[in-house]
């Protein structure tokens, strides 16, 4: 198993947000997590990525059988965990290509593989940018600075494509995308999809799942998974809303 989350309780500033969450993800699988606003989806994503603002109260998270929670955020990233942020951060003064190359080389170093110099990396980056149909003018610009909402999301997928993580957690990457961008982003995700890797998609919309077919759909409400199903569950949710599953969860 790639990721095992067992009875996870976590919160922020003394407030418990995840209240006993359990989830298993195998290699090759795509899991969609849906759920009402404020139910804890981003919290889960950030806890998995190791955000220092969140505290784990109890429970266990194993990644490739090892305790993920004792790793620093950068170690988690180098071991293959990637979070595409719901709200990507702007980093003024640092160019996209410089940032990506440093990140890529840190990973290579970790794997004991060869690092790329700026020229070599540029070629690699160009290839990857094709996946998300991103113009090379974005390479020189500061990370996310002045990017439109959709461009920021695409930039997250570009980073994912460059880093080729084992586990990608996409937190509402589809929100705020126009139809074309949605197709492009979904295409990027599908390219990453293979039997070795797994993807967790946090989304509010069934339409993303038309492009990326999930193996499982989970409903997160009030800090817990209250319902699981196949891709049909997303359709059902779209039709009926969340009340019936929330009720079922209680």
């Amino acid at each position, binding site marked *: 198993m790639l990721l095992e989350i067992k009875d996870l309780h976590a919160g922020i500033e003394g407030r418990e947000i995840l209240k006993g969450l359990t989830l298993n993800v195998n290699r090759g699988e795509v899991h969609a997590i849906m759920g009402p606003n404020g139910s804890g989806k981003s919290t889960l994503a950030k806890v998995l990525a190791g955000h220092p603002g969140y505290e784990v109260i109890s429970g266990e998270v194993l990644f490739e059988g090892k305790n993920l929670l004792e790793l620093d955020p950068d170690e988690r990233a180098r071991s293959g965990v990637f979070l595409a942020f719901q709200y990507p951060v702007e980093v003024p003064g640092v160019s996209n290509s410089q940032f990506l190359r*440093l*990140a890529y080389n840190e990973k290579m170093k970790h794997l004991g593989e060869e690092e790329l110099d700026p020229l070599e990396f540029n070629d690699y980056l160009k290839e990857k940018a094709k996946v998300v149909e991103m113009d090379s003018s974005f390479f020189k610009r500061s990370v996310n600075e002045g990017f439109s909402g959709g461009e920021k999301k695409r930039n997250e997928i570009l980073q994912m494509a460059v880093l080729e993580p084992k586990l990608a957690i996409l937190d509402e990457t589809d929100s705020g995308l126009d139809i074309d961008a949605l197709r492009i982003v979904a295409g990027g995700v599908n390219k990453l999809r293979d039997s070795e890797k797994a993807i967790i998609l946090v989304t509010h919309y069934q339409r993303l799942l038309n492009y990326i077919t999930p193996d499982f759909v989970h409903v997160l409400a009030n800090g817990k998974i209250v319902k699981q199903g196949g891709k049909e569950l997303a359709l059902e949710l779209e039709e009926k809303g969340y009340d019936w599953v929330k009720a079922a969860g209680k």
Partner: protein
Amino acid sequence: MNSQAGKETIYTKDFLASLENANQPEWLKNLRSEAFEYFTENGFPTPRNEEWKYTNVAAIGNEDFRIAQSSDFTPEKIAPFVFNESKESVLVFSNGSFDRNLSNLDAIKDATVLSFSAAASDEKFGEIFKAKLGSLVDFEKNGFTALNAAFIGEGVFLFIPKNAKIESPVQFLFVSDEGKAAFPRVLVVAESFAEATIIETFVRADETKYLTDAVIEVSLADEAKIKHYRVQRESHEAFHVGASGTEVARGSVYDATNITLGARLSRHDIDFKFNSEGGEAFVDGLYLISEDQHHDTHSVIDHRLPNCTSHQTYKGIIDGKARAVFNGKILVRENASGTDGYQSNKNLLLSNDARVDTKPQLEIFNDDVKCAHGATVGQLEEEELFYLLSRGLNESLARNLLTYGFAEEIVNKIEIESIKKQLDEAVLNRLNANLEA
């Protein structure tokens, strides 16, 4: 005061000798004498002076810096400090005096370069030289500007006539010998529609002690455009005090970038004024100091007439036990309606012992203005740091990259590639980081 009296004697002897030997017109000798009198009476400023509250220059008074009679700089010693773009437009000052033999004026066409002694007696330029010299940096501003004026010798007068454009950036390169006091001075006059880029570079590669007390005055007539880079990379043992005075006129654009990396103790005073309606100015800067360095920028942007725009972005990165001071005043006078003034000073403290005192000030005497200012002092943004960590950068790399990015906002605006490259390297060096762009 007593401890200074002895030092004044040192300057007094040198002053009298240099005044006697100078081949200068009476008015200039008088100006020098008055300036020296001011210095004798007032000495260097002390922290009791509000403008010098955080910058104690007593250490300078305790040193025995002397005026150099000569120097042994050679073209080979100078070469590494000359920017590629300015190889044929470089004006070298050694120990404060313009050194024509070390300079190269080949690419300075359509403009006139005169040493002060030549300018003062020049038939064509004598009048304007006299009118402008000392008009933008008052010698009675403080003991340093007074001492600089008292020692006016071989400065450089750069005159850019109407409609002329100097294509190569003109680099003023200041080098000093150990133990010396240098008083370099530059006067730039740009007539209407003139265009040029000027670079001041204060540099010394090894760790020696000396004093640079520099003054530059830059006057822009209507529609003139001047880019002004100032790169202070003195020895880390040196003392550096500089004053920049600028006036701009209708439709002229002055764009300054002041970079401070060197010196143990440095101070930079900026006196900027709009002399007609409708001028625009950028007065930006970056100070990057560490260990026991001290830097102080004091700037006054004087909106005295309507419809002028000023932008000021100053950034500081302070490490070790270093201490920075930023005091920036935007003054909007009574009849300066339509003023647009922006000022920001952001500081990054990289260690617990680092310190900054920042004081942005708005003094507004007109209602029809748009002014914004602000200052921040802080550590790196936690969310930005987490973002980089979440991509696998280790913590020290991530911190360095963010610090670098913080500095780059200023460095990136520099349009001369070799300055930019040098500063990039200097920033990385300071951070001890390999971030190869």
